[in-house]
């Protein structure tokens, strides 16, 4: 059910002409310039400034020319207002450092004083963007493969396969949630999102391994029982610790979500979702699938 919803979200994202990818790609993958500005006023006491106003001003900027390239037109840039209008985030086509500087200077001249110590400019060239995307996908696949190899070495092929199924399930649902967030709230995925996926994958396997380890350990003493009952006993015995281990990992993440500031917010959310889902799949999904597959391999 959750998987279907996730897939649906990603398909909808892909069909959406403005996104045309399973997830809404952020600056890291598309390339571009993001400028964060802090206005010199107390939060709440800033003069009103609307997104449309800023966009209009951006469209009128003249930028220094860079080499042979035409300077880009900024009128259709993304603008976001944070902290009651105190912080302004601009999403622009990739600019040179000179041009970025010019945007900040002219913005400051036209839309009121800025605190320069609070400015951040981040530019990622389009070629680097596609490279980052490639590197992210490769590191995802390599880590999945390496984990599967290790599990099949320590346990057996069926365990490794099921661990991979769980892992794919956790990663899929995390992606699905972000596809929906991208569709509905415009949440973008960046290279930190890939990091969170890989961490979720590692963690999901860790969780699953605890249950498997128990099944293997008692398979000697409970050998006379059918596999499904062996699994029940193992899940029963490990239920509390599975919940507790997830909880102790979620607690620091909640710290990051509530107090960690905007730069790590979605990263922590992705990790929290993945770990919550991973804990369910290691208790609910992996053990239920095991009898199905062991029965087949025994036959």
């Amino acid at each position, binding site marked *: 059910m959750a998987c279907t919803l996730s897939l649906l979200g990603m398909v909808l994202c892909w069909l959406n002409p403005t996104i045309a990818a399973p997830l809404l790609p952020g600056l890291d993958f598309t390339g571009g310039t993001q400028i*964060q500005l*802090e206005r010199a006023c107390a939060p709440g006491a800033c003069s009103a400034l609307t997104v449309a106003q800023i966009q209009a001003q951006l469209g009128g900027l*003249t930028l220094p*020319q860079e080499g042979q390239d035409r*300077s880009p037109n900024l009128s259709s840039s993304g603008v976001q207002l944070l902290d009651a209008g105190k912080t302004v985030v601009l999403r622009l086509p990739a600019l*040179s*450092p*000179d041009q*970025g*500087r010019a945007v900040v200077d002219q913005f400051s*001249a036209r839309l009121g004083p800025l*605190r*320069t*110590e*609070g*400015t*951040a400019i*981040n*530019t*990622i*060239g389009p*070629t*680097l963007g596609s*490279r980052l995307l490639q*590197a992210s996908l490769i*590191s995802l696949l*390599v*880590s999945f493969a*390496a*984990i599967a190899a*290790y*599990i099949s070495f320590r346990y057996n092929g069926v365990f490794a396969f099921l661990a991979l199924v769980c892992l794919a399930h956790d990663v899929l649902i995390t992606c699905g949630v972000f596809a929906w967030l991208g569709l509905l709230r415009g949440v973008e995925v960046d*290279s*930190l999102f890939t*990091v969170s996926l*890989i*961490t979720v994958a*590692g*963690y999901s396997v*860790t969780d699953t*391994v*605890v249950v498997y*380890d128990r099944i293997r350990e008692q398979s000697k003493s409970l050998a006379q029982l059918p596999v499904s009952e062996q699994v029940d006993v193992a899940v029963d015995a490990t239920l*509390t*610790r599975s919940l*507790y*281990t997830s909880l*102790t*990992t979620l*607690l*620091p993440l*909640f*710290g*990051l979500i*509530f*107090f*960690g*500031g905007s730069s*790590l917010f979605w*990263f922590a959310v992705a990790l929290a979702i993945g770990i919550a889902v991973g804990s369910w799949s290691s208790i609910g999904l992996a053990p239920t699938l095991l009898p199905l597959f062991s029965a087949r391999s025994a036959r």
Partner: protein
Amino acid sequence: MGRQQGWFAFILALAISAAVILYTNGLRLGLDLRGGSQLTLQVMPAGAIKQVDRQQLEAVKDVLDRRINGLGVAESTLQTVGNDQLVLQLPGEQDPSRAAKVLGTTALLEFRAQKPGTEKQMQGLLTLKRQAESILAATRPTPETPSPPASLLKAADLAKAMAPLGIKVSPTASEADQLDQLLNEVNRRILSLYGPPLLTGRDLTSAGRQQQSSGNSWEVTLGFDRAGGEKFAGLTQSIAGTGRVLGIVLDGRSISEATVGPQFKTAGITGGSASISGNFTAEAARDLEVQLRGGSLPLPVKIVEVKSVGPSLGAENIRTSLLAGSAGLGLVALFMAVVYRLPGIVSVLTLSLYALFNLAIYSALQVTLTLPGIAGFILSVGMAVDANVLIFERVKEELRSGNTLIRSIDTGFSLAFSSIFDGHFTGLISCLALFFLGTGLVKGFAVTLFIGLALSLFTALTCTRTLLRLLMSYPGLRRPTNFLPARQLPSAL
């Protein structure tokens, strides 16, 4: 018990040395935490070179190192990344545009003589160039005139100038864009009137700058080596008195065109020195001087990533992550103490040791701490607690089945070991994948998580066990009710 005390002394010694390391070395903070700029430069293949290799990357780095030294930026670091990228970090620098300008251009300087028989064409092109440049300068915002008029020309005049050059003008382009287009075309035509480069930046031994005797503008002075001096003399002799120009070309743009007087007809300009007076500002002259001294880049570079973070934003990042970290850890500590009682408190103690060791390792290995790195640290704390949970659950289980306390603790540790090890090992695998395949910030996360996981194997299995065993030597603490509620104990005990 002697063995436990030995371990305890060892752990204590480790803790003290960790504190000392941390105190003396401090932590290296990334630019996102302390403020500053970072530029990523990609070396582009050119000419016969299709694929950039290590050696060429080092050659480019040498040149860039010299240029950075010339700029005189404090504390900057330039590192190679992979096979074709360089990362320049400028701590404390908020405006990377100057560094970008100086580092990002090839700075290939060429002296080229105008071909004979092209005098008339050149005259027309140079006039056009001067006009376009002066109009552009007047429409550019300066500190004195922050908002100059956007347009100074009649559209028809501009179109008349463009037409003979064969430039198609899009009706929506601004005047500045059209003039830029015009200048590009004029430059292309001027270049086609030049002969081959007879003298290049390689023949230079020195570069300097001086203010011109008239006006505010600066010129860049050049000193040639012996061979270069002879070539320069030959070059100037060939055009002396003819009215043809000597073109000085920088990175494919003609930056200065000079005529040579008839008095140099016999020997050319000798003495092995020259100056470029291309209407430079003080800063532009200094930048060119730095570039020429450092030499031209063997391969062109492109700036693919620029990050700059203001200092107060960095401080804000430190503050929020400290808050997040302590809130998260506080919650975990509370949870452990409530659920696991005495061993829970022991685990909180070992976790504090764990955090201390982690930071000491960052400090000793000079790991640069970035925002994702801090996230990795916080997450690794969460995973380190997992190991304790697995152990204590096992201990409880043994107690419930009627084992004695000491025995339960020992069995708990040995039975939990294999799942702890497997779990940590898969985590380490993910970290390795992230470290070797990821880039920049991703690497920072992988490093701290890797250190955290490896360390947690040690602290969970050694520190927790030692502390717990040590406490068990006090009879007052050796009560199963310190481990789980009385009603869960088998009545026999």
